[in-house]
């Protein structure tokens, strides 16, 4: 048993922390809330120079060839610094389905350019029903000659407005079992008939409503097999749940550190508020929650990296726990900070708002409890 980072992971973490401290200050995080694109192309390019967009892409496709555990290490740092932009969209929602289901040609064509930072990808999965199960995929894709015609609305699509390609889940067949008949398409985001509308979210991240009006997609753009796309979506969702857990872990860890420091510094009644047990006990609870987040997230990332048979259970346990533990942490963080924490000016609210977004991403606690219950056989 070794719960520490190995040398390579340690280097990755230390480097990422130094890099993001310089390149992703609070001012950038705030600016990107107002920016319509929601990311800094300059930072995106610098990240690509470090090989981050290609971190988990094999070397034969121009990537760095590291594993999912290393991605979790990096994403923890992203959460710490609240890095804005389409990184998870591109790497987890874009590159992973191509790696899982793409043809050799699709891999050759797209993965090197993703690794270079030349492409932004995302996945268009949810629809107005906001269901994360196969039943939620109702947008029709009907065959027409050598193409498919996509019509319908996708909702909560992260970074669609700046994307080059979207992995779109659409229904090619109505079957009694909703997990059958879903097909994945690699769609050029600038195809005629596609419109994006930016949503105004709690975290000021960039999620879109994307409408498809008779969008023609060539048959060669099918990712994997026709009608057999849902298992791929499931595998991506499992990894995305753990990726967001890692982001939430870093976010919670940082909120905790800022709040404990504040409790030591803030003087009331002639003494630091951290000397009051009412505050101390909140801090103690935060410490346990953050440690819990850390080890269940890395245990799940490790299960995925090792291809363990129960990786799905670990992923759901992780996202269920982290979704709520991180919310408890940021809620305590707000309370410890008192009035200043409630202002837009002070940084702690940035964590509070993003926590809620990430809590929802790829399933909140109840969604994953249901999956755990199912896997437990109850």
């Amino acid at each position, binding site marked *: *048993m070794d719960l520490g980072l190995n040398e390579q992971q340690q280097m990755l973490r230390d480097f990422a922390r130094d890099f993001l401290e310089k390149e992703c200050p609070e001012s950038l995080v705030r600016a990107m809330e107002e920016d319509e694109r929601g990311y800094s192309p300059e930072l995106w390019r610098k990240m690509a120079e470090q090989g981050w967009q290609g971190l988990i892409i094999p070397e034969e496709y121009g990537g760095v060839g590291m594993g999912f555990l290393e991605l979790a290490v990096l994403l923890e740092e992203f959460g710490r610094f609240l890095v804005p932009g389409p990184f998870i969209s591109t790497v987890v929602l874009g590159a992973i389905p191509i790696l899982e289901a793409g043809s050799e040609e699709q891999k050759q064509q797209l993965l090197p350019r993703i690794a270079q930072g030349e492409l932004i990808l995302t996945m268009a999965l949810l629809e107005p029903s906001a269901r994360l199960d196969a039943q939620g995929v109702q947008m029709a894709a009907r065959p027409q000659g050598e193409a498919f015609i996509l019509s319908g609305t996708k909702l909560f699509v992260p970074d669609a407005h700046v994307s080059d390609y979207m992995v779109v889940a659409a229904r090619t067949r109505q079957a009694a079992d909703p997990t059958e008949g879903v097909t994945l398409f690699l769609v050029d985001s600038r195809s005629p008939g596609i419109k994006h509308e930016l949503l105004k979210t709690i975290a000021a991240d960039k999620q879109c409503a994307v409408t498809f009006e008779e969008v023609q997609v060539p048959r060669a753009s099918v990712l994997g097999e026709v009608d057999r796309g849902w298992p791929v979506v499931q595998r991506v969702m499992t990894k995305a749940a753990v990726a967001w857990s890692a982001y939430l872990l870093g976010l919670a860890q940082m909120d905790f550190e800022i709040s*404990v420091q504040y409790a030591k510094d803030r003087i009331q009644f002639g003494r630091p508020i951290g000397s009051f*047990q009412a505050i101390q*006990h909140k801090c*103690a609870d935060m*410490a346990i929650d953050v440690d819990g987040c850390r080890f269940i997230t890395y245990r799940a990332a490790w299960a995925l990296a090792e291809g363990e048979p129960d990786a799905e259970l670990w992923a759901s*346990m992780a996202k269920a*726990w982290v979704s709520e533990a991180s919310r408890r942490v940021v809620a305590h963080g707000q309370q410890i900070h008192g009035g200043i924490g409630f202002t837009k000016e002070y940084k702690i609210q940035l964590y509070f708002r993003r926590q809620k977004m990430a809590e929802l991403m790829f399933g909140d606690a109840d969604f994953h409890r249901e999956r755990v219950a199912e896997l437990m056989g109850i």
Partner: protein
Amino acid sequence: MDFKDSPQEAAFRQEVRDFLRRELTPSLRREITPFGPVTDQREIVDPSPQMRAWWAKLRERRWLAPHWPREYGGAGLSPIEQFILKEEMALARAPVPGGIGLNIAGPTIIVHGTEEQKRRYLPSILAGEVWCQGFSEPEVGSDLASLRTRAIKDGDDYIIQGEKIWITGGHRGRWMILLARTDPEAPKHKGLSFFILDMQAPGVRVQPILNMADSLEFTQVILDDVRVPRENLVGEENRGWYVATTTLDFERSFIGEAIGQRQAVEDLARLALEHRGSLPPSLRYELAERYIEATVAKLLAYQVAWLQKQGLNPNREATQAKLFSTELSQRIARTGLKLLGFYGQLGPGSPRAPLNGLLTYLYLESVKDTIAGGTSEVMRNVIALRGLGLPRV
């Protein structure tokens, strides 16, 4: 990061599994459930003959006191080996040896005791003599260092005068480890001494205390001019606080508890399906949440073991594990009773009580878990002050 055993750890784990497969009989396993022993007898009773045989097998294998050095009859296992042993025994639902003698008195004597004390007491602990711990007093709970029981020097002896309370197994104890005040003038931590007290000595009076679960576990012990010979002082006079709070170098991860909790949730899920057929979503989620929490408890235990493996002192982390684990026991008991609905009020011995009222008993019994060995509030103080460095005043 690697959650697998190292080759060495895997080999030791296999050794433990082989032993358990060979020696742990199914009937022995049935004497223990994750909820505690299945029995109507709520008093601490003499172990059954087969339990005695089990202890003997463990003693032979040196796993009765795996954390003691080999020269004193232990196995001298490293913390990570102790961790694996506990984990495997819990997974196999094997009865685990414990108690004040093996876990506190023995290790304290090994660190602070004289050669004579080691020779005299350690073998008897391994032989099964019951020890108890006389620390708390009627007026002294969490603020232990302010205890009032006096030890007054009288020639070669000390005369002990005072009252001790919450003494688990006091009515069966042969020896007591005792904290008493030898210097009332000194600051409170600096006037205490640590003694071994003969429970059969004149002046020792034991009064049982029935707890709210109708269980006779602990007692009050009145010490009325009890004579303790000087050779029963452990460590130096007035250094008793430091003897009592020595961080003993053995595994303290709460892994056994975490494994037991997961088994308890699995058993609850089975019971729920038998008892109610199908479950509404709220109960499904609650059971799943308990399962996830037991998994987190296990990972917090792994964190402690991993730090100890590196020779670090996981003070904050072990405190977190204790706090989380004991609060979780109560949540599991609560979920258990919720599953049973009206049947949840039926206690041991009642007609129609599921599992003979075991869950009802556990619901009451687990109340003490967040009090004994340091209340949850004290645990949070320790995490905040010593772990996070928050200011004292």
